[in-house]
Every structure is written in C-alpha cells, then in structure tokens.
C-alpha cells in the first residue's frame, strides 16, 4: 500500500482510539472539575460498563442489535447510579478531602475489580457487534494532470468503527449542550467555581456532586459499551483507560472539558499513527513523554487555566 492510503488507515484507527478516549477522559475531567476529586476508580467504572454490557447482551439473547441497544441504554445508567451511591455513601462522608478521596477511590477500585472477578470470572468474553460490514475507503491520485479517486486494496474500516466515532461525537456534543445550555450544567459550573458560594446561593452542592460523579462514571461506562464489541470484556481492562485518561486530563488541563477532548484527539491520533507506522509501545512512550513535557513547561495543561 502507498504511504497516503496507509496514513489514512492509521488516522482512522487513531480516530477510533480518540473517540473512546475522549468519552472516558471527559468523564474524569468532569469529576475533577466539579468536585476536585481524583477518581482512581474511573477505569473500573469503564470495566464495569464492559462487563455489564456482556451480561445485558446475554440476557437479551436473540439478535445482537437488540442486546447492544439495550446495553447502550441501560448500562451507563446502572453504572451512573452505582457511582452516585458510592459518592453519597463514601466520598460525602470524608467531606471530599483531596488526600482521603484518593485512598477511598483506590479502595473502590479493588472492591469493583475483585467483585467482578468473583462473579464474572477471569475470562475475556466477546460481545457481538450489532453490525460489522466492511466499508472500503477511497484515495486519490494524480493521473494525466487531474485528481482521480480510486479504491486501494486493504484501505477499509468496519461500519461499526465508524458508528463508534460518530456516536462519540454525538455524546460529546450532548455533554457540551448539557453543560452550557441547561440549568443542571449552570449549577455544576457554578459549583466548580466556588463551592461555598454555591451553598450561599441555594445550590444543593451534595446533590450536584452525586450527579457529577454519576455522570462521569456513566461516560466511562458508555465508552466501554461502545468499545466492547471491538475489545473483549475482562475484569482487568480498566487499567489502560485510567492511565490514558489521566494522561489526557493532565495534557488538556485538569478539569477542562474542551482540553480533555482536544488532548484525547492528540493522544488518540498520535497513538493510531505511531502504532501503525512504528509500534504501539512507541506510541505509549510518546504519550508519557508528552505528559512529562507538559508538566515541566505548562503545568496547567495545554488548554487549562491558571486556577485549574
């Protein structure tokens, strides 16, 4: 394959990684932004989303489309409610103290992981994609002084991967609309700015925190439901999304939603391109080096503000 089509293929794979990463990392950024809580258990909510998606698709039986659709609607909601309950029963009791919330979320990480191991088991299990046709992608070449489209052999992507990229864009637009156009978004942004003043203006801060924590975990679960037909559900699958989400949130600027999305694009695309042309390990080295440079030269992140 020529360089051009090869690059196109790498970009499409990178876009898929970026889409899933943007969903997961925006959940983490939302929780940190509103609550100033570093949620170390975020990856386990992702894992729980994937495992529950497998469970729901098995329960639904029949056509994979119905199982997938049911999982897409139910699983983020279930994980969100569980996370809100965790917030109200654990984080609220330790008054959202920064150090103690880190320790508490590490504990939640192990509880979720081990309960999943005991109930779901150590196997990696696949979820059938609802549709999976191969879509050939066109490329162009100069012929007789004019641009001509052609269909290079091997330059293709599955329809499901395109759906994941599209769905992530829709969900992120929805999150943007929620934060900027609704009363709930306004209350969350006000709480993010000044918790004490939010109290003084009648905002039920504890409820806003529970909603933000649930929404953040729900975003991670949604990302997992979307990716589980491509990767298999496994009780240890939360580690990578957690690490990459932290990388993205640090590069984007702690607590900045637009920053998280732009950084997810940067990390996802570079991951795709470097993995295809060189090796996946080199892609991880690049991401880690980028974090180190950002921490040294722009500690507030590429798109963060001073108070973040």
């Amino acid at each position, binding site marked *: 394959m020529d360089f051009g089509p090869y690059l196109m293929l790498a970009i499409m794979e990178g876009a898929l990684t970026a889409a899933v990463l943007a969903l997961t990392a925006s959940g983490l950024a939302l929780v940190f932004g509103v609550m100033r809580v570093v949620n170390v258990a975020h990856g386990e909510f992702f894992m729980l989303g994937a495992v529950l998606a497998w469970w729901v698709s098995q329960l639904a039986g029949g056509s994979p489309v119905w199982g997938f659709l049911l999982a897409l609607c139910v699983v983020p909601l279930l994980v969100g409610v569980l996370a809100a309950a965790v917030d109200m029963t654990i984080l609220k009791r330790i008054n959202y103290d920064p150090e103690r919330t880190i320790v508490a979320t590490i504990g939640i990480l192990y509880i979720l992981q081990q309960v999943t191991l005991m109930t779901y088991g150590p196997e990696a299990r696949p979820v059938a994609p609802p549709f999976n046709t191969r879509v050939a992608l066109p490329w162009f070449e100069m012929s007789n002084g004019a641009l001509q489209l052609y269909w290079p052999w091997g330059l293709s992507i599955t329809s499901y991967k395109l759906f994941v990229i599209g769905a992530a864009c829709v969900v992120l637009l929805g999150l943007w609309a929620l934060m900027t156009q609704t*009363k709930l978004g*306004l209350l969350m942004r*006000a709480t993010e*700015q*000044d918790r004490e003043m939010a*109290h*003084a203006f*009648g*905002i039920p801060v504890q409820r806003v925190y529970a909603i933000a924590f649930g929404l953040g975990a729900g975003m991670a679960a949604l990302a997992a439901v979307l990716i589980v037909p491509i990767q298999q559900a496994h009780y240890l699958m939360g580690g990578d999304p957690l690490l990459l989400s932290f990388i993205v949130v640090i590069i984007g600027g702690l607590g900045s939603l637009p920053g998280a999305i732009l950084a997810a694009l940067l990390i996802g695309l570079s991951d795709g391109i470097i993995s295809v042309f060189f090796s996946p390990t080199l892609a991880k080295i690049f991401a880690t080096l980028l974090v180190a440079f950002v921490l040294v030269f722009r500690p507030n992140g590429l798109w963060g503000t001073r108070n973040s």
Partner: protein
Amino acid sequence: MLKLETVSAGYGAAQVLRGVSFEAHPGQILCLVGRNGAGKSTTMKAIMGLLPLMEGRVLCDGAVLSDLPPHKVPALGVGYVPQGRRLFGALTVAENLAVGCLTFGKGNAALDEVLEVFPRLKERLAQRANTLSGGEQQMLAMGRAMCLRPKVLLLDEPTEGLQPSMVAAIRSAADHMRQQGAAVVLVEQRLDAITALADQVVMLENGHLRGTLTRSQLMTEDRGLLEAHLGV
C-alpha cells in the same frame, strides 16, 4: 426579622465570635463595625450557615436558620454579598445573575429589577464576570444577591477599594433594598457611609459585642465611641 441569639462561632478549634446577639429590622440598615479581626465577616458566614455555630442560634422571621443545611438558608430570603465579591468568575454576567434567579424560580421579573438598578450590567450580560472592572464586579455581586429578592441582605464591605462613583452606586442599591423593606446588614469601615446610611450600628471587638447605637445616638454624643471601633 433577623435575630442572632448568643452566637459563638469560629474556624475549627479557633473561636472568633463569642456570644454575639443583635436584631436587624425590616426596612432598616444595620451597620456592623469593628477593627480587623473583630469577627464581622465571621458573623456574616455564621448567619449564612457557612460556619457551624458553637453555641446560640440565628433566626429569620421565626425560622431557625442555624438548624438548616447552608443551601436552604437563601430559600428563606437571605441574600449574601461576600467580602472580595467571590463571583463565579468563568461564568458570564447573565449566568451569574441566573444562578440566583434559577435556583428559586424568581425568573425575569427579579432580573429586570436588578438590571434597572444596575443598568451597566445590561451592557455586559455576555461578558465573563472575571473580565469586569472592580466596580462592575461589585454591582454584579449585589445584583446576584438581589435576584433572590431577599428579605435580609448581608453586605460585607461592598465599597472596599472602589472609586467614588461606584461607591455611590452601591450605596444607592443598598438604600433601594431598604426602601423595598429588606433588613440590610452592612459591614462598613467608612464613617461617612455609616452616618449616611445606618439606622442602627452594632460594634464588635475581639468577637464580643461592645455596644449598639441608634441613628439618633449616632448623630450626637456617641460618635467618638464609633470612631474608636472602626477598622484601621
């Protein structure tokens, strides 16, 4: 309307207020004076429920504010303009005003009234709060509290560091709230403002109540006593 009964409060183990009692009446401005560290801002926070009381209670129209969680205090008609303004800086002027209006569903009528009192805010509705000038920020802080249509309005040094024209606008807004029937509690350090606005003066010293003055006393023999309690 607003009543403090032997209120003691502080930060952690450090007690600041020691058994302070006073009452603010509707349609009057009560000026709270005292030197730095006397406990004026602590009193405001204690009324809002932002600090737990060590003893005593705070009542508004007979309801015990100090028994409520802090976010329920504004619903009983208590508006707060804190020292240093503490706006939601990354939110626009319109969004800052909306926080007060939306929370209690007071809607456009309250907003229109605020924009009538502070017409300059109308020109800045789409601007971020942290890009406003100091005076405009103070107008917004007052407007945000006025959106609650408060029965009790707490103003913590609202004219600190402002140019004279802005000071006049803020004082005029405080007077407007008094005329609307609100009980205004004003922390103020300037003698001219106190003598121009106060219906009652409460003096604090090291967290203790050192005395109260009525308007008539203020204009006559006890002015020297008041000057002794003003901040440095």
